Structure formats: structure tokens, C-alpha cells
């Protein structure tokens, strides 16, 4: 394997991995805060890509501004879905509601949301693939190693988003509240905080991350109405691999899956995904809670 190929595969791995990391961070924030296993996450990702297409390709808005608009739009979609569906649902849950029942009904509600968003997007945009012109078509040429600048930008953007998320979660009072609500909503309510709106913002934040992931990746792949379904399964896998409730685990898991997929597809072809799954099984045998998570009953 030449150095050029190796570096290209590595960059591909980091690109795929960083998108999965953004997706799974969103999934994880929603799961921890609102206790919803969000099946509509892939569709939120897809809508993010369509918003990017709308602003950047159709209306020629600035690249960075389009990204921010995609994030904001998806935060609004997320907040509205939470208020319209999950808030009504969670009103029925009491402290004595069993976790499996709660999980099942929220997951089923998110499946309903997924079907509506999926078909709604299909009706709005049709089935054809939409290409977005690359904002960075240049090819970097460093010591005969050719890398697309767009992929580098994607990686840098993802790192920036992760960094921003870190600052938000650990350096602001909102982040502290969000973490407290994820840990114990009743205790937070007893401290005089309105946990409800924190949960709305929590769902909005997770949705915004999915939207940003879609918007960031949109210029690299074409935008189709299938892209959400393709990405959601591996996102769940990364969530499981890294361990639910561990941001570091998610990042390690995302990079690992990115590397395995990128190098696996090059040398093994389509069975690479099977190897990723085998790896997850082996890791779950050794560590039932994922790489850095705790096993739960």
C-alpha cells in the first residue's frame, strides 16, 4: 500500500468518522436527557442536508451561514417535534412507569415522526439526487499525496462543532443544567429549575447536531431521500460501541468505525460492515456496556 493511498483512506476514515460522531453525540444527548431512542435522527440529518441544498445551492447563501442556518432550522424542527409529540407523551409517564414501557412508547413515537418526516421530504423534494457544488473543489498536493480540500474542511468543521459542544456542556450554566437534568430531572425540579424547557432545548440541541452533520456532509455526497436510513444503523452501532452516555467513548467509537469502514471497503468490499459488527459483538462480550460505558439492567 502506497503512502498516498494510506493517507487518502485515513482522511476518508476521519471524514466518515467525524460525521458519525456528530450524529451519535446528538443521539446520545437526546437519549440521556429525554430518554428517547430517536429513530427520526436519520431523517433530521437528511433534512439538514436538504436545508443546506436549499440555502447554499439554490439561494447562494454563504457556506458558513448556510451551515448555521441548517443547524438553527433543525433545532426548531426538533423543538417543535418535542413539544408536539414527546412532551404530550411524557406527561403520561409517572415515576412508577417502568423504563421498558417508557422506552418503547417514546421509540415508537419517534418511528411515527420518522415516517412523517421521511415521506414529507419525499413529497417536497422528490426522489432524484440533488448535487451540491463543492465550495472547496481544490485538491491539496502535499509530497505527492493528493487530498481533497473539502474533506479536510469537513474534518475541521466537525472538530469545531465538537469543541463548541464541549464548551457548551462543561463551561456554561446551560450545559450544567442539561447534564443535571440528564442525571435526575426530579432533583433538578426540586431546585426550582423548570426541567421541561431544558428537555425541549436538549432535544433541539440533539436535532441541531444531526442537521449540522447532514449539512456538513452534503457537498461531499449527493443529497437523496435515502441518506437518513443509510446512516442511522451505523450511528446506533457507534452509540453501542462507544458506550451509551460517554462522549469520549462516542468519539473513539466513531473513529474506529470510520477506520474500519474506510480500510475495510478498500480491501474487503461490502462485507466490511459484517466485520464492524463482529468487532462490536466481541467488544460487547468483553465489555457489556460498550468501550467506555456502564452496563445497565
Amino acid at each position, binding site marked *: 500500500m502506497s503512502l498516498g493511498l494510506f493517507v487518502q483512506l485515513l482522511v476518508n476514515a476521519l471524514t466518515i468518522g467525524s460525521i458519525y460522531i456528530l450524529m451519535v453525540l446528538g443521539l446520545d444527548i437526546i*437519549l440521556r436527557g429525554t430518554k428517547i*431512542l430517536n*429513530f427520526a435522527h436519520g431523517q433530521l440529518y437528511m433534512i439538514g442536508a436538504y436545508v443546506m441544498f436549499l440555502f447554499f445551492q439554490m439561494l447562494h447563501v454563504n457556506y458558513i451561514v448556510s451551515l448555521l442556518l441548517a443547524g438553527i432550522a433543525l433545532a426548531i424542527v426538533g423543538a417543535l417535534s418535542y413539544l408536539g*409529540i414527546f412532551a*404530550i*407523551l411524557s406527561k*403520561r409517564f409517572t*415515576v*412508577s*412507569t*417502568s*423504563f*421498558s*414501557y417508557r*422506552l*418503547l*412508547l417514546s*421509540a*415508537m*413515537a419517534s*418511528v*411515527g*415522526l*420518522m*415516517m*412523517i418526516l*421521511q*415521506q*414529507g421530504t419525499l*413529497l417536497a423534494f422528490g426522489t432524484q439526487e440533488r448535487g451540491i457544488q463543492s465550495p472547496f473543489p481544490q485538491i491539496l498536493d502535499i509530497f505527492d499525496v493528493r487530498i481533497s480540500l473539502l474533506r479536510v474542511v469537513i474534518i475541521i468543521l466537525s472538530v469545531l462543532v465538537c469543541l463548541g459542544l464541549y464548551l457548551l456542556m462543561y463551561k456554561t450554566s446551560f450545559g450544567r443544567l442539561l447534564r443535571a437534568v440528564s442525571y435526575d430531572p426530579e432533583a433538578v425540579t426540586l431546585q426550582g429549575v423548570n426541567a421541561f424547557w431544558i428537555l425541549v432545548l436538549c432535544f433541539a440541541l440533539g436535532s441541531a447536531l444531526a442537521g449540522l452533520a447532514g449539512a456538513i456532509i452534503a457537498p461531499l455526497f449527493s443529497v437523496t431521500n435515502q441518506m437518513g*436510513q443509510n446512516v442511522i*444503523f451505523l450511528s*446506533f*452501532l457507534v*452509540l*453501542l460501541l462507544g458506550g*451509551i452516555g460517554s462522549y469520549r467513548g462516542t468519539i473513539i467509537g466513531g473513529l474506529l468505525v470510520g477506520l474500519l469502514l474506510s480500510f475495510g471497503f478498500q480491501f474487503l*468490499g*461490502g*462485507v466490511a*460492515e*459484517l466485520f464492524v*459488527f463482529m468487532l*462490536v*459483538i466481541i467488544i*460487547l*462480550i468483553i465489555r*457489556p*456496556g*460498550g468501550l467506555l460505558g456502564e*452496563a*445497565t*439492567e
Partner: protein
Amino acid sequence: MAKLPNKNAIGSRKKLIAIVLTAVVLLVLPLVIDSDYIKHLLIMSSLGAILAMTFSLLYSAGLITLGAAAFYAIGAYASTLLVMNAGFSFWLALPLVVLIAAVLALGFGSVFVRNAGVAFVIISLIFVQVVIIAAGQLEFLGGWGGIIGISRPDAIGPVQFTSKTAFYYLMLAVLLLVVLAFNALYSSRMGRVWRAIKLSPHLAGTLGINPYKYRLLAFVVGSTVAALAGCFYAHYSQIITPGAFGGWLSIYVQLYAVVGGLEYYILGPIIGAVLMTFVPEYLRIVKEIEPIITGALLLIIILFFPGGILGTIKNSKVDPFWNLKGKGRSDKTGFKETAEVGRG
């Protein structure tokens, strides 16, 4: 404890009438209906009902699976390979498939079930995806194009299974067997242990019950029955492709259970499966917005009728003779979750 004898007798007479009526309707139905399409939908509903019952079985032990389609696919592929390549008779392949599925379920289940809760939901969903990819990528499983020209089940004496009517009766018999088996399970100690684990694994643990062991048993039983349904599916549709088991199937299966009534482990899935097979088919008139209507319907049921159809009927006190065995006793909301110790 002793109930008034006459009240009990009325109850059981009503129940008997209901059962006999249903049986007569089900037996006469294919003779009255001429359309092959409706018979096809009925056969697919019975397959869906069996799958949804396996979902409910796992749910009764507190496990939420999105992987019903995985063992359905494994059953379909195993039986196809045994019949088409190894030359077994269908009726000989059937017990072999059950054996294969049980061994596989035990192997995979022993890893999966260690994480009850969110991780189990996710891993069951991913497992379906993996089975599909394996079927698509591996050459001897027919690749993405699938396997075509699978034979119908061999005739038993003079009874041929070539017509849809004959297959309908076959599926009815299979469904009845599964219902009886599951009913027996739910009324046995095993069923009570499962419900105890669902209510609180910790509490069950303090009573000397090993939740892992019993959950694994539930997983094996559920997966084996799903594989059995897969056998009949393969030999009914005569063509299997990896795509047929992917995407929406697993999600639809749990939809059946939720729509019918989650706490009615046997009747709920059956009613949900029949309804959710027929209603979307007739919504095809408005094909474009059909998923939106189905999705909205699902949301409405979850948000406003949490007991499902049966739970809602039960609460409105229309008639109590829906009370088939195997359901939890329901409170005002149609659900039984009251004493929860810790978040299982």
C-alpha cells in the same frame, strides 16, 4: 377467592360463544371470499401476527426487540437452503430449522441479552441489518437478487398446498398452535417469572430468579417461533430477497403489537396485524401520503390510546369477553405498571 359460580358460567359461556364464532368465521372465510388478493393479505396477516406475538413474548420479559425480522430471515433462508440445495422435504426441514434457529438464538442471545434496556433495542436492530447484509453479500445465499422458485410445502397425503386457500388453512393451523403454545407458556410459572422480571428485575433477583437466564429463554423461544414463521413465508412467497426482511418489517411488527394492545400478549398482536395489514393496503389509493397517514395514525394511538385497540375497548367497558389469557390485568389506563422498584 371463589367467584360466584353463575357469574363465572356466564363469562365462560360468552367466551365460548366468542371463540366458536371466531373459529367458524375464520374457517368459512376463504370459501366465501373469492379474491386471491384478500386471501394473500390474510396469510400475510397471520405471518405478521406470529411475528408480533414473538415481539410481545420478549416484551413480557421486559425485552424490547427490533430484531423480529432477523430470525424470520434466518428461518426463511435456512429452510430454503435445506429444501432446495440439500433436497430435504419441507416437513423434515421444519424441525431442523427450528433446531438451527434455537442454537443460533442461544449463541447470539447469550451476548445480546446481557444488556437489557436501550442497548438490547439497538443491538437487535443492528442484528437485522447484519443478517440482511450477510444474505446479500454471501454468494451461496443468493446475493442481493435473492433465491427464486422455492417449492411450496410438500403435500401431506391428498392435501396439496399449492392454492392460496390451502395455505390459508395451513397458516391458520400454525397460528393456532403458536397461540396455544404461548398461552400455555404465559399461564405457566415461566410466564409469571417473565412478568415479574419485566416489573422489576431487581425485585425478581431478590426472589432467587436469575433475570438473565429467563430473558435468554424468552429470546430463544421468541426467535425460534420467528424462524418457524420465516419457513412458511419462504415457501409461501416462493421467492426470498434480503430486502424483504429489511427496513420497515421489524418496525411494523412492533407496530402490530402496540396498535392491538401491548398488554394483550396474544390477542393484541393478532388484531393489530390484521388491521395494520389491511388498512395500509386500502390506503394505497392515496399512495403518496400513505406513510404519513400510517405515521400519524401510530402517533395518535400512542399519544391518546395507549392501551391500543383492546385496551381502549376494555376501558370503555363495552364487553369484557375479550379477556383471553396471557394479558396483564389492566388499570384505568389499560396498563398494569404500578409497583416499580428501581428503573429496570
